[in-house]
């Protein structure tokens, strides 16, 4: 059974002006099991990672990332975005088993 995909956390700047390039920070709880480790009985613990992250704004893909086992547990991903208009972000994290978890966040302009 795949490890649980924890609660995602997304942070946008509090005050955003139109035209400004902002940083969007994301964090999700996940073990990111590499598939390289062994348990106490010497059996390989199977790989189980978040392998894909996607960020969409108003349905359009803005940024995506393919993750390998070399990404730390509880993946932290931050990227940039040019805020031209208000709208809705949708962030999706998908694991090896194809299960996913999403979060949404509204972008408001000052």
């Amino acid at each position, binding site marked *: 059974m795949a490890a649980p995909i924890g609660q995602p956390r997304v942070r946008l700047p509090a005050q955003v002006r139109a035209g400004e*390039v902002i*940083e969007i*920070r994301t964090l999700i709880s996940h073990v990111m099991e*590499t598939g*390289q480790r062994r348990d106490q009985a010497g059996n390989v613990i199977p790989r189980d990672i978040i392998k894909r992250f996607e960020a969409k*704004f108003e349905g*359009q*893909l*803005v*940024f*995506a*990332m*393919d*993750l*390998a*086992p*070399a*990404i*730390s*547990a509880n*993946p*932290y*991903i*931050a*990227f*940039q*975005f*040019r805020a031209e208009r208000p709208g809705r972000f949708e962030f999706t994290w998908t694991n090896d088993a194809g299960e996913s978890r999403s979060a949404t966040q509204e972008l408001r302009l000052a």
Partner: protein
Amino acid sequence: MHTLKAPTRRGAMGLAAAAAAVALLPMPASAQLAPAVQAAVDRVRGNRTAQEGRITLRAPPIAENGNTVPITVSVESPMTAADHVTRVHVFATGNPTPEVAVFHLTPAMGRAQVDTRIRLGQTQDVVVLAEMQDGSLFQARTEVKVTIGGCGG
């Protein structure tokens, strides 16, 4: 009776000095990569030549904990529809597998910069390849010394 000769102090000092001299040599971005790492880089590169420049790869020179090493990759680019970074590939030269991440960028970002945290199993280089919309390729490389739980590395 000792049948094996114990290492002399002088011998040990000589070895340490030689190791220090090697560590002080600059690391060119084109320095030889392990075959598995070179193969992974070549899969991205194809028949293109990677140029130096445009990429800023920030990573700590010394990482106390190899389980979570912060890296920032930024690429000089106007990030317009006609001229932007499409993909950034991150490799680690001394991990069990060389691939670390692929970032897929779009002009909507406005600035080509991504931060994440990576695992480094030992002291090694991080290699970054950035693909531009016109197909051109840039690369950067930096060494991270890893100290895991004080065991050295």
